[in-house]
């Protein structure tokens, strides 16, 4: 069906359906991350002291900076959704580009962190070189850290790809309102990935910062 045959009521109905579908997908994502958070609580509860010691080995300044980057990318994504709805193609493409670049910046900082932790011998497995107190909990902490932030990074990579793709498609579109629902769904996904990080951040970076 071509766009101009749709009335406002049909457009609203279609928009609601798209959002609902995306929310159902996000529910499966909540359960997916949920079990990981459950494992997290179990490990932390089993040895709170060791968990705190372990958390002192992550780079809290880089993590905080990265959180600011991701929160800002959510702002540009929300503004992009608004631009798509207002049929402002230039603004949409520009805001999607900003969102994608902020996502890429986050990945760059995260990769730096991973590299530093790998150099410090904190990657669980045969290369795990930490030999201080609570060795087992520290290894479990870093196991959770790499799995959970890694899964988050995969989600973000998918998001960056989708943002880039939509920016390229929108550039050739005469009326970007045609892409309105796709961008809206993309926005929901992007914000969800942001929300997941909002919890990962205090759980790994802010456990034991006070002296």
């Amino acid at each position, binding site marked *: 069906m071509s766009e101009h045959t749709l009335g406002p009521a049909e457009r609203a109905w279609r928009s609601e359906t798209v959002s609902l579908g995306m929310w159902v997908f996000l*529910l499966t994502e909540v359960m997916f991350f*949920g079990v990981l958070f*459950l494992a997290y609580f179990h490990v932390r509860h089993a040895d709170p002291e060791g968990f705190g010691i372990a958390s002192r080995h992550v780079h809290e300044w880089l993590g905080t900076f990265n959180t600011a980057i991701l929160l800002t990318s959510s702002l540009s994504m929300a503004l992009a*959704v608004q631009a798509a709805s207002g049929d402002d193609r230039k603004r949409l493409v520009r805001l999607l580009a900003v969102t994608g670049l902020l996502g890429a910046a986050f990945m760059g900082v995260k990769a730096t962190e991973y590299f530093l932790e790998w150099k410090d011998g904190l990657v669980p497995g045969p290369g795990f070189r930490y030999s201080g107190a609570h060795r087992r909990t520290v290894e479990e902490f870093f196991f959770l850290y790499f799995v959970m932030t890694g899964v988050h990074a995969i989600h973000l990579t998918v998001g960056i790809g989708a943002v880039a793709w939509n920016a390229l498609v929108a550039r050739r579109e005469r009326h970007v309102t045609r892409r309105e629902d796709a961008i809206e769904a993309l926005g929901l996904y992007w914000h969800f990935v942001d*929300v997941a990080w909002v*919890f990962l*951040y205090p759980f790994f970076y*802010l456990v034991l910062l006070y002296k």
Partner: protein
Amino acid sequence: MTQPAARAYWITWVMLLALLVLTFALAHVRLGNLNAAVSLAIGAMKALLVALVFMKLRRASTLLAVFAVAGLLALAILFGLSGADYATRATTPAPWTSP
């Protein structure tokens, strides 16, 4: 779908960054058991802001809101029942687990 004003998004962003600075600063203050609670509470506030404003739950239909809350409910059941299990059972190590 009618779009909220850009101003609301910018205000939300400022609030999110303010909460980030607040939680980072409070994590450096010794509050005992409250440290974990405070960082979790601020995290929840940030998530709520993103969900209500950026994800538009504030203006969403009841159906959509029910779906969003269903996720939290399922999560609460998962945490509640599994947590009760961990809290009330003795840990029996598997034969291959090193003590």
